[in-house]
């Protein structure tokens, strides 16, 4: 399945759950709603034409306006690769864990929780991970994060 087919296949299959983001890139990018996340993830894994069995990476993003959580998925069998993301407001940012679909999501989600403060429902093991156990200085990858020993590059 090449890119063009994929770009038409996914919106056709999943209808209004998914929206194609046209950001003019080589690889297709989809936007889905947070409440559809788990359902969509399972569907693309089970879909025989897609068979997205490989979760490369879960990246949290703070754009300065809202949070995004980007899922980069691929398939070992069909060699398809695309990304999709959910957009979350700052207040009460929360998503469903996709561990039941891809067990490897565990640590990636923990990282998103830890560094952005996005709550992961049904994760089961949200404990400190990259940061020290007694860390109490907030979520470092948020744009508004500041700590006394953090020095930004001087604007030149």
């Amino acid at each position: 399945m090449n890119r063009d087919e994929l770009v038409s296949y996914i919106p056709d299959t999943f209808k209004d759950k998914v929206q194609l983001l046209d950001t003019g890139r080589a690889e297709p990018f989809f936007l889905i709603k947070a409440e559809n996340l788990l359902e969509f993830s399972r569907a693309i894994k089970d879909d025989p034409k897609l068979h997205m069995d490989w979760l490369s990476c879960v990246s949290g993003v703070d754009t300065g306006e809202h949070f995004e959580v980007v899922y980069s998925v691929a398939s070992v069998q069909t060699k398809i690769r695309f990304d999709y993301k959910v957009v979350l407001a700052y207040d009460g940012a929360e998503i469903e864990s996709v561990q039941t679909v891809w067990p490897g999501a565990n640590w990636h989600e923990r990282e998103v929780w830890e560094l952005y403060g996005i709550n992961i429902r049904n994760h089961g093991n949200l404990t400190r991970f990259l940061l020290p156990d007694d860390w109490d200085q907030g979520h470092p990858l948020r744009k508004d994060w500041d700590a006394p020993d953090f020095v930004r590059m001087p604007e030149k």
Partner: protein
Amino acid sequence: MSESRGLHTKEFTLNVGPHHPSTHGVCRFVLKMEGEVITHVTPVIGYLHRALEKICENRTYEQIIPVTDRFEYCTAMSCNMAFSLATEKLAGIEVPERAEYLRVIMLELNRISSHLIWLGTTSLDLGALTPFLYAFREREYILDLFEMTCGQRLTFNYIRPAGVSRDIPPEFIPKCREFIDMFNDKIDDYERVLTENPIFIARNKNIGILPPDVAIAYAVSGPALRASGVKFDLRRDDPYSIYDRFDFDIPTRENGDCYDRYLIRIQEMRESTKIVRQAIEQIPEGEIRGKFNKMNFKPPAGEVYCRVENSRGELGIYLQAADKEKKPLRVKMRGGSFNQLQVMPVICVGHKIADLVAIMASMDIIMPDVDR
């Protein structure tokens, strides 16, 4: 250790690391053990967390390249490559032909040097000290080649968006050819010491078996995945740069144990020399860097996830750029070791503490890759 009455044994919590000779950096394992048998493993990471992703949000695109060097320092070239690819994809930059060849040569040499580190540390972890030094001896040749080209032995800062930083010096090609000519013999040397050695086989065969479905579910990539019998290599299956022009094999094995992972990496070193040999024969003359505004590069808004196959598997960079900003909005680095370490609790249970060391070594986990 044992309770007074009967054969009741108390569960024993052993803290391996963070400063333990065999944890490849500063990783800690909290082991629950019954005697010498592991019943539960909890990796504790974060000792090497350098906040590289936060630093990247605070640098211009050219300045991020030295930061990516520190991401996974055993294969800094592929980190440079992944970030450069992401930037190029984002802004639609063309890369000159010669630069592509130089990139492939460097990436493959770097893969060999990384596998040599793995070979050395693996044999060291299993108690054989001599192959360690043999591996490092050959690695020095490669590092000399790198230093000759880009001036550094470890943090190369060589592959840049739109090309590479410098052209190779004239003595590079002969030296490189000399290296790959002698290198296959050296691999034979390592194999004579290790491959058929009954002690080495006893330590590695049927240890840490990683079934293919578990490997895929946990997104374990690279040689560890191929040792489980899944023929998946990004150089073939999601080709980047000019890998589609070279003729090389992707070795796979069936069992997915430590011994297979060892054989796969040995075989991969041989395949890499093939690629380097083809590349230095085909390399054209020409420009080495396309158009790229070093100081004021401002890509259009967008986001991209780019992945390359490095010696530990899939190395991905997720890059999101705000519109007309000199600094990216988000750089996420995904290293192969992250997922490899994640699968450790699954495959270590039931093995001995000595096997943990062997499995860790065969997975080729290095901590900067995990902690970033």
